[in-house]
């Protein structure tokens, strides 16, 4: 069976859903953060697949910019996690229930 566009679609959906599951299952903030990266990569994969499908270079540039933003996001996000760890000596998101108050 030759590889077609639906295969890539399913693959990236699967990776995305795994990321979602991880986000919901885990309590460790760093793991959750990694799951978000995984979801981003799933989207990137799909974009590249469509770029390939339609022979359009713009999608690849979007992937490029998503990586840029992801890098920035990771820098800030990790800084926040470090900060939070310093405050409460934990990265458990169940401790972060301050939003209620």
């Amino acid at each position: 069976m030759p590889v077609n566009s639906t295969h890539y679609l399913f693959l990236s959906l699967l990776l995305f859903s795994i990321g979602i599951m991880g986000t919901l299952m885990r309590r460790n903030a760093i793991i959750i953060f990694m799951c978000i990266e995984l979801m981003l990569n799933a989207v990137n994969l799909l974009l590249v697949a469509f770029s390939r499908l339609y022979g359009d270079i713009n999608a690849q540039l979007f992937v490029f910019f998503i990586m840029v933003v992801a890098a920035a996001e990771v820098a800030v996000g990790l800084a926040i996690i470090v900060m939070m760890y310093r405050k409460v000596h934990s990265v458990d998101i169940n401790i972060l229930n301050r939003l209620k108050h």
Partner: protein
Amino acid sequence: MDIYAILFWVLSAIAVGCALGVILSRNPVNSVMFLIATFFAISGHYILMNAQFLAIVNVIVYAGAIMVLFLFVIMLMNLNADVEPQKGHLVQLAGVLSGGVLFLVLLAAVKTAAPVIMDRTNTDIGLISNLGKVLFTDYVLPFEISSVLFLSAMIGAVVIGKKEDMHSTVSKEGTTP
């Protein structure tokens, strides 16, 4: 089944398997390792699709820089041991279920899409020279603005990560798990 298909299936299996490993392994360091493997598999996919530049960037930026950053943080906090308290089974089940439902819904939404055989003749759009030309002509403004984004992210990270005054670092909660 040609070599392309074989490679596709192998890489897909690696990617999905390692992604599952990310969310299932109890040790955060293992998670990081699995994620790096996943990224490599995705980079392989990129190469399969003739997006060589993105494959390289993915390896360098994600698997290299970002994941090393994660690793640093985990090491810094000494979280490599399995210290994470697990969520209740019910909650985990709910997470898996809702993730699965989302997958099914999305799948059902796109399953009617007509399968198109990936064209392998036009091979050079992912080459660095082509990308570079477009990046520095059509996308030059977003490119420059992204540098500002980096700068602000850098400053933000420094400001957030800076040690505070001594008396305010003493946490009032002190609820270490």
